[in-house]
């Protein structure tokens, strides 16, 4: 069972295939090169941390991966399909079913209670009301919020809010979870709780990509991609000793 090489290569099918992507933002006279040529291949059930200094293009890359933004040049294949060829409705469908977003600022609807927030992606997927409530409730129980179904976001702690957001990202059973600094607004203890939730998801077979600039957080991932000035600086798989030490803790 134990591999003799110093790291474990992922073996699942490729879900994200980014080739030499660039992204420019035009700011009046000036052009900002947010990404200058990034290539990234992600297999199913990988757990990736994207790191890098502020302004290095992490969020830009995440938005690209999440089909929220389109590259200036380069090719993006999602599950073998060229994203550039999809129309707005297809992109919306992918965001709805294949991708689960978790934001740094939670982005919950303030007037809707926990349950309704989590039901939202199911509404867009056309799920009937009973199944919707059932699945949202189950997902909330899974993230440990079974007793907070009817609370409004402002009646929850930061960690609880992020759990709601995670439940919302999971409820449509997407193949990929994208989290842009999910612990950025949380204290370190709550952050660890959230990270153990991601660990669970990973173990259950989810593909996870998260952006962070905290090494402690990135340590949970099996692969770390470092960005600097819109380019990939390094792309490291976790070594076996590291894996072993993780298993011990």
């Amino acid at each position, binding site marked *: 069972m134990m591999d003799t090489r110093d790291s474990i290569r992922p073996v699942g099918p490729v879900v994200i295939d980014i080739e030499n992507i660039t992204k420019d933002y035009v700011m009046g006279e000036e052009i900002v090169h947010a990404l200058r040529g990034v290539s990234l291949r992600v297999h199913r059930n990988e757990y990736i941390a994207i790191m890098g200094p502020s302004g290095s293009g992490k969020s830009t890359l995440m938005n690209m991966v*999440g089909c929220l933004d389109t590259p200036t040049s380069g090719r993006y294949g999602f599950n073998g399909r060229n994203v550039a060829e999809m129309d707005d409705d297809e992109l919306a469908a992918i*965001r709805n079913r294949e991708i689960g977003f978790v934001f740094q600022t939670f982005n919950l609807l303030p007037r809707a209670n926990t349950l309704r927030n989590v039901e939202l992606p199911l509404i*867009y*997927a056309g799920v009937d009301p009973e199944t919707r409530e059932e699945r949202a409730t189950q997902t909330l129980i899974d993230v440990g919020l079974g007793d907070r179904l009817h609370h409004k976001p402002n009646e929850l702690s930061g960690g609880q809010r992020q759990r709601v957001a995670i439940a919302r990202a999971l409820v449509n059973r997407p193949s990929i979870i994208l989290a842009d600094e999910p612990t950025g607004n949380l204290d370190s203890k709550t952050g660890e709780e959230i990270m153990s939730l991601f660990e669970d998801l990973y173990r259950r077979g989810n593909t996870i990509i998260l952006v962070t600039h905290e090494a402690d957080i990135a340590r949970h991932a099996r692969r770390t991609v470092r960005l600097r000035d819109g380019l990939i600086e390094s792309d490291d798989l976790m070594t076996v000793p590291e894996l072993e030490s993780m298993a011990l803790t």
Partner: protein
Amino acid sequence: MKRFLYELSESWKIAVAQMRSNMTRSTLTALGVIIGIVAVTLMGTAISGIQVGFDKSMAIFGDDVLYVGQWPWKNVDDWWNYRDRKKIKTEYAEGLNRMIAMTPNSNLAIAIPTSSVYRSVKYMDSEVNNVLIRGTVSDYIITSTFDFKEGRFFNELESRGGANVCVIGYDVADALFPSASPIDKSVLINGQPFKVVGVISRQGSFLGLFSLDSIVVIPLPAFQKYFTAKSEAEILVKVKDKTKLADAKDELAGLMRHVRGLPPEKKDDFSINEQQALKSTLDPIKNSIAVAGLFITGLSLFVGAIGIMNITFVSVKERTKEIGTRKALGARRRTILLQFLIESTALCLLGGIIGLTFAFLMCFLIGVAFPSFPIHFSSKLVLVSILVSVLTGLISGFAPAWSASRLDPVTALRYE
């Protein structure tokens, strides 16, 4: 399809929640629509009220009767041309009936002479003033649509003989005989005793203005004996087929010219009136109410629409980040479009419903204050108002909803 319904109900819930949390703002914004809807319903109510009252009043006249008189039933600018016309005489009826009998396939059935005057009517110590005293023949009953509360109309014998009998209207009976039955009692008209043989059941009033129940009908010979001064005669002619009213009118005009002995080059010196002609006198009133009402409605709806458009733009701006989040969760463009369209529509609908409630209350109060005015708050009007509100909402919400649906998800998510 199912998904559309779910999105619809979701959008509706959001819209309601949104309005609840901004109640003052919503109501103020909807003010234009509220005023517009009040204006349109009050206008509609007034017009249909006039119409209904009119139709009700008209029904008493019967729509198969032509009225030969000195004056036309409409406003005339050249009244002096009519003033000097020869008076209509009750005797014309006999001549007309003779000619009708001689004409094969005549469109006319019978001519009834009437002559009217206003007098007071007394019984014991009670007195009613300004009662319409009408002298006519027993066949008068054919041309009228009224029922009897008690008793009967005078018969042919009484009619011909000019017996001192009378049929009294509901108001007269009510005023003179508050508790007892008037039948076989003697009332005094112009000092002459007339025995009551019948009481006409309640007819209502003409447009709520003058009562049609303040009337006493007596045999023509008796009328001519006592009330010739200042009386005005009118010949009622019943037609056989009311669908051929125009033909009947032409025929009657010919007969009348014959009776009057008019040479062909002379114009008619009498007027043949019909219920329909009265209706057209109403049109200018209805039109001016409609024009004023539509103007106010249009103006306030326009102002309301601008307000709603504005508030929807504000709402889109305030919730830019939410729009971004929804898009990230899989909302399509049309989902967002629908959501804001429904918000603006719900706002207009709120205005419409408040407006309708106001209008309804106002109609109710008017109805209480002036019970005789025919108020008619129709369900059609409610439907039209709701439709107008929804339409206003859709139109005013479209531009902001469209701009929301086109928002770039990343830009929206970054919006602070």
